[in-house]
């Protein structure tokens, strides 16, 4: 099984492990990530303005490439996942944006949101299945109490992303169970880490991350996993007393599958 893969800017630099572990794990799980050639940055945030077109075109190019390959498109980074899914929804359901973007793109055949955008976790859940994953685990992380940190971009708006229940998600918890560890459910797992605010308002980000750490450690978590480089950065920058280590979920996946050393 081959997928078009959209790594995004950060996975090429500061979050190389997120990418590396994912590729190795994917091979082990039986699918291949084919990086989209000449992909362009999604912009990191979805342009909310209903009249913004130019800032959506990079995503449309990637989506259209996947369509031409006849492949589903996979992302790993929460932000890319968010932007690509929402732009795809615009192309499919918002006539005005779709028409104008197509006018710019001048494609042989207009792009109308045909590509299916999947987060890496969705592939594990919907294509491979957590039960299958469980069978493939060679180093189960038995006894580890892990909190899943979703943040905002993977879940909201729930109606468009259709990733999981935006107020009570379970995909990462199921993932944690599948790799043999024990998920710690805590309410603030979908509260914002501060996002880009940390660039200029460090204290605000400190306050946000403290709330998250306080809540997850209170409920017994020993470590957190995330899918987002920005969330991980903000969490790592936290000075909260309750701070615990934060990993990309792919790192734990690679470890559980026994491919971490190959990376």
């Amino acid at each position, binding site marked *: 099984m081959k997928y078009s893969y959209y790594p*995004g*800017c*950060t996975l*090429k*630099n*500061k*979050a190389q492990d997120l990418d590396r572990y994912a590729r190795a794990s994917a091979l082990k799980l039986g699918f291949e990530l084919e990086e989209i050639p000449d992909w362009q*940055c999604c*912009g*990191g*945030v979805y*342009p*909310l*303005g*209903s*009249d913004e077109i130019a*800032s959506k075109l990079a995503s449309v190019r990637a989506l259209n490439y996947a369509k031409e390959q006849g492949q589903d498109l996979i992302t790993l*980074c929460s*932000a890319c996942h968010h932007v690509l899914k929402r732009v795809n929804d615009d192309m499919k359901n918002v006539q005005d944006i779709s028409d104008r973007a197509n006018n710019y793109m001048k494609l042989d055949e207009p792009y109308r949101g045909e590509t299916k955008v999947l987060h890496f976790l969705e592939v594990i859940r919907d294509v491979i299945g957590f039960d299958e994953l469980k069978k493939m685990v060679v180093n189960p992380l038995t006894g580890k109490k892990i909190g899943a940190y979703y943040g*905002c971009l993977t*879940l*909201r*708006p*729930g109606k468009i992303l259709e990733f999981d229940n*935006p*107020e009570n998600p379970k995909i990462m918890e199921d993932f944690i169970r599948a790799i043999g560890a024990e998920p710690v459910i805590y309410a603030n797992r979908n*509260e*914002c880490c*501060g*996002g*880009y*605010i*940390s*660039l*200029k*308002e460090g204290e*605000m980000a400190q306050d*946000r991350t403290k*709330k998250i750490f306080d809540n997850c450690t209170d409920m017994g978590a020993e470590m957190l996993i995330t899918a987002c*480089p*920005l969330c*991980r*950065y903000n969490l*790592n*920058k936290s000075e909260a007393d309750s701070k615990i280590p934060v990993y990309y979920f792919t790192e734990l996946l690679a470890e559980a599958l026994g491919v971490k050393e190959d990376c």
Partner: protein
Amino acid sequence: MSRDAEMIREISGCDPYRCMKCGKCSASCPSFNEMDIKPHQFVSYVLRDDIESLVNSKSLWKCLSCFACVERCPRDVKPGKLIDAARQIVERQQGGDYLKADEIPELLDPDMPQQLLVSAFRRYRR
């Protein structure tokens, strides 16, 4: 309605008249305390045509675009989109970028992911 108010409604695609003042947005907002104009008040400013105060508000730069208010709003008003529209008016018309290029080097830190810079640029600048 002023041109700016009209524009905010157009850019955001939100109808402020649908708001029933329940406060769900302000109850959900993680940046509530840092904001001078609170999320549930955005609607009133647009309806009152006081775009001046809105574009000069600190709140514009404190919103995290986390969509908690958008997800939970029972009336489909989506205050987060309104504030983003106001932010865009500032950036488009008044050149009031919140982030200057020459500020950057001093804000940088070696662990900072590219995503952060890209996002901040998108949100803070035209």
